[in-house]
């Protein structure tokens, strides 16, 4: 993973307090879900693909053009660890926040950092506490 991305010492404030209840609820559920196998997951099937989830804890400093392509993350659920650069080329999808359902390609990752490629644009409007999943599958882009 590149070292050129500097992270803000203080996280960006949430741009909308409205998103907080949902995120808090999701995190609480994660925290207390260790025994809560539910629904279809009672059927034990193999994972369709390898995946890691996480929560954004800090955004990198913008480049001279004001674009951000990297963030610091807390792997979820607690105790999960990212293997550096394992997720290179994988698909990142945002699960909350203003960019809900937006997709990016991972350029590289550290134990707690993720860098996305410029192919899908910068991480505009992505904020601290946003949730994401990174899956071992290529990003499919519509032809321009």
């Amino acid at each position, binding site marked *: 993973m590149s070292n050129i991305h500097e992270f803000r010492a203080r996280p960006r404030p949430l741009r909308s307090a409205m998103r907080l209840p949902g995120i808090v*609820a999701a995190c609480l559920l994660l925290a207390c879900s260790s025994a809560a196998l*539910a629904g279809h997951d009672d059927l034990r099937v193999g994972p369709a693909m390898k995946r890691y989830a996480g929560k954004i804890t800090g955004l990198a400093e913008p480049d001279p053009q004001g674009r951000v392509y990297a963030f610091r993350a807390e792997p979820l659920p607690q105790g999960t660890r990212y293997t550096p650069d394992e997720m290179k080329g994988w698909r990142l999808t945002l699960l909350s926040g203003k960019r809900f359902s937006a997709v990016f390609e991972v350029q590289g990752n550290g134990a707690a950092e993720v860098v996305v490629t410029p192919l899908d644009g910068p991480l505009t409007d992505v904020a601290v506490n946003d949730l994401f999943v990174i899956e071992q599958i290529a990003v499919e882009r519509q032809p321009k």
Partner: protein
Amino acid sequence: MKLIALVLAGFVEIATAQSARVPADAVDAFHTALRNKDTAGALSLLDRGLVVFEFGGVDPTVESYALRHLPLDMDLAVAARWSLETRRVGGEGNERWVLSTYRVTGKQADGTPIDQTTLETAILRRSGDLFRIVHLHWSTSDPAFQARVQQQRPK
């Protein structure tokens, strides 16, 4: 000719995932997106006010569903075949419902067969021209399965 067919097939797939103008299409597109491992496509069909009831469990927000259960539902959608058996639709205006039953068949990771009927209630809300799913409720006609799942929940 083959190329045109492929391009058209791709276009239809994308159009289905992103523009469900008929409630039942939104439900079908959601299942298709799960089967295609298309996380963003599945999310795009969910209303931001989504609440999911799944075999006695609750995902109170779209974020909690996306984080906890959507991946597992995707795993099952990939591993098992969901055949639509019955469907009823209703509602009017911006609020509609789609009631479906599916026969879900396949094999679990240990080779145990999957063969059950899954009952699905979907409530959809129109936002602009598109319908998105605002509530999903899944259960099964198999009382033993339902009881087993609910016993696993923390009291």
